[in-house]
């Protein structure tokens, strides 16, 4: 049974329907990529899982339906969502950002231990703990957002366009860490990306969305090899 399962999920913003029946599954320990053009519904899919948007259909996490749980509930169940635009608390310090990551799921005593664990992946942060998060560079902020998400030992990490606005080297480093987390901690990852080449290289399985539903799916290796799919859906 998949860790996260979506079946015929529809979602709307007020009167506008953004998802017209998305079905996908993410198995435990996998890195799954969600690709597609602007407006295809990738971000909306993540928001549907988190409960930030009105959704209908079936959304199951570890077998249990998420439909009644809002974002707060999803967080408590072990879903960490790093939204578009990073989602950090810019006026708080780096350390306070990490502390907030632990808010729902772990006790105060564990905060220090878990933060230490996370800082192991981002050693440069140790010197910047008192720094105001808003003054970090774009890449550093994205790393902070990722670190924040990791503190509570999530079972599923959802990343929304992590490469947006970042330099290629920084993006590489980011995905290297994600891969490391996947390997060392068995972290399940669902990543939304516009940069198809990057996402295909980093993931096991890929779904391509088009106008609110899944157009193509397959293992990332298959999709990379298939020139027709690459040209029609992924633009390269």
């Amino acid at each position, binding site marked *: 049974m998949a860790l996260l399962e979506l079946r015929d999920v529809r979602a709307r913003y007020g009167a506008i329907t953004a998802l017209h029946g998305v079905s996908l599954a993410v198995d435990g320990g996998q890195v799954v990529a969600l690709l597609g053009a602007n407006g295809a519904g990738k971000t909306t899919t993540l928001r549907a899982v988190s409960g930030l948007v009105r959704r209908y259909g079936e959304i199951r996490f570890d077998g249990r339906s998420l439909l009644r749980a809002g974002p707060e509930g999803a967080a408590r169940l072990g879903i960490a969502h790093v*939204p578009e635009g990073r989602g950090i*608390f810019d006026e708080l310090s780096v350390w306070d950002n990490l502390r907030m990551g632990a808010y729902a799921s772990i006790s105060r005593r564990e905060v220090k231990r878990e933060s230490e664990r996370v800082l192991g992946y981002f050693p440069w942060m140790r010197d910047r703990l008192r720094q105001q998060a808003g003054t970090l560079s774009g890449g550093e902020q994205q790393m902070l957002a990722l670190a924040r998400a990791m503190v509570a030992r999530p079972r599923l990490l959802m990343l929304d366009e992590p490469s947006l606005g970042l330099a290629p080297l920084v993006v590489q480093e980011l995905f290297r860490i994600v891969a490391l987390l996947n390997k060392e901690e068995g972290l399940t990852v669902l990543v939304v990306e516009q940069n198809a080449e990057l996402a295909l290289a980093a993931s096991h399985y890929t779904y391509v969305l088009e106008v609110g539903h899944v157009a193509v799916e397959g293992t990332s290796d298959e999709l990379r090899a298939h020139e027709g799919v690459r040209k029609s859906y992924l633009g390269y």
Partner: protein
Amino acid sequence: MLAFAFAEFVQQIVSGLATGSIFASLALALVLIYRSTNVVNFAQGEMAMFTTYIAWALMDRGLSYWPAFLLTLAIAFTGGAAIERTIIRPFEQKSALAIVIVTIGLLIALNGAAGWIWGAEVKAFDSPFPNTTWDVGGVAISSQDVGTFCVCLATVALLWAFFNLTPLGLAMRASAINPTTSRLVGVRVGWMLALGWGLAAVLGAIAGMMAAPTVFLDPNMMLVILIYAFAAAVLGGIDSPIGAVVGGLSLGVLLNLIGRYVDFIGPELRLPTALLVLLGVLMIRPQGLFGHAVVRRV
């Protein structure tokens, strides 16, 4: 002669700090609500007045001061949170003007309700501080002033500790900074907002109970104080808690000094003069003394 003048000057400052601490408490309440819910709560003064009446009613029934004080704070907290959840919450997403009208409506309704329930005659309100004056090196300092200052500042200090040293306080700050991400980490942002209004109501109640012994209890007692608190909050920067406190204290002192030392400004013009000074500061520094300059990125 000079010593006399100096003593008088210090007295004005001390009593100015006492009234200023009342302004600071109410201003801090305004800033708290503004930061967490982005609402300017015009009803803050009337909420304070109403809770002060509740304290009076409790004491009238035989409760002694400090138990009544604490019970009133609890009632204020619940009332403030309830108001946010029921009346304010539906408007949080709507236009700013709608909320302005709602808080104005609340102001008018509370003012009327107080007069209706307890009558409009002026009442006396007990002070927990003895009616004594201390002589400190020739300067007469009333213990009422000292007491007021200490209570208000202790409250501010406790609030500071809450926000900066506790996880709940951190969560509240986070909710104000980035509500969406806060929800994503599991913070129930809705309750944080209610909590903010509850704490603000507590601040208001304290301001009211500290002011009442001096200005006496009547439904309109907090109207002028609200204006000054509003001015102090804007002076300090409407999104800055430190600014509210500094602004409040400065304004209290300024008012006393203007009233005492500037003669052609009669008592009627004290308020406009203070406001004029305030506006002068805002012209030079539009975001207030401690506020964040709004940098708009294109």
